[in-house]
């Protein structure tokens, strides 16, 4: 009987001591996971641009050619 009580007390103290240690794996793992989840939620914006709209600038159907007529407009910096 006394052996059983002593065993239970030892087990209880061992559990408390393990929880109190700073490197307790279960506690730390849970907290880290929670922090990472929070961080990744903050750092990752929602999907922004529809697929395909981020394609590289596309070439024209045909390149410009030397003009044979008077210009109607100027393309220049603004």
């Amino acid at each position, binding site marked *: 009987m006394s052996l059983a009580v002593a065993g239970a007390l030892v087990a209880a103290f061992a559990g408390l001591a393990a929880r109190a240690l700073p490197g307790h794996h279960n506690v730390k793992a849970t907290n880290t996971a929670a922090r990472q989840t929070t961080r990744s939620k903050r750092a990752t914006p929602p999907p*922004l641009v529809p697929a395909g709209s*981020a394609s590289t*600038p596309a070439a024209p159907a045909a390149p410009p*050619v030397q003009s044979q007529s008077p210009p*109607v*407009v100027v*393309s220049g910096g*603004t």
Partner: protein
Amino acid sequence: MSLSFRALGTTAVVATADPASEGDACAAVERELDAIDRACSRFRSDSELSRVNRACGERVAVGPLLLEALQVALGAARSSGGLVDPTVGRALRAAGYDATFRVVAARDAETFRAEFCAVPGWQTVEVDADAGTVRVPAGVELDLGATAKALACDRAATAAAAVSGGVLVGIGGDIAVAGTPPAGGWSVRIADDHAAPVDAPGPAVAVCSGGLATSSTTVRRWRSGDVELHHLVDPRTGRPAESPWRTVSVAARTCVDANVASTASFLVDDAPRWLEARGLPARLVSLAGESTVVAGWPEDAA
């Protein structure tokens, strides 16, 4: 024949293949430009964009046009590897481009002191297309100048072509054409400054479809003491870009694509190679005034 008028802080030009439809085309273009201005202007306190910039990190409901303009801007950022970035607003403002350029140009350069700040990056912008909302973190300011004007061109040309047939729309040097062009295509003078007269010296090219954009660091320049600044900010430094080029013109499938490419050309290491690899016909003018053409852009006439 063409008509021109002031819009978006610059000059808009509308030309139609059928002169009889010029009025209808102009009306359609003005409607589009007015809508873009109300949605996307950084200089109007009542614009939707200004509301987003003032929201201090709160999510803001916006209309479909600003939503489209933001998606275009973010697509441009992604496709350019972040070189064309809409979050340069604060850097531009700190450097001195904090009002319409007429105000900036009139400022006393001796007393004005530019500041430079980091660009937060386009990934900080949160757009929920389904909910129609936008959020930028507190302190982040959007500037859609690089792409919104080009988007306005593309949209205006499409709208005008629907009522007038073949049309060319030019806004501050960005050009989009739609519908059936006149014989020989639309003739466009290429210059450093879009405000140059159409009969100014320089090459002229003809385009039949898509868009053409020219970016230049020779215009929209201002001073802070002895330092000369311009509006093309490098997102990697938050400062005006340093480039061997002074003017780059690009033809592409759309005016937005042309504008993204002409802007990025000031920031990539080897712009002729970058453009050639993408099959984008372009003409680049060095700081010394020497021109280089790539991907089928015609050589300057002798």
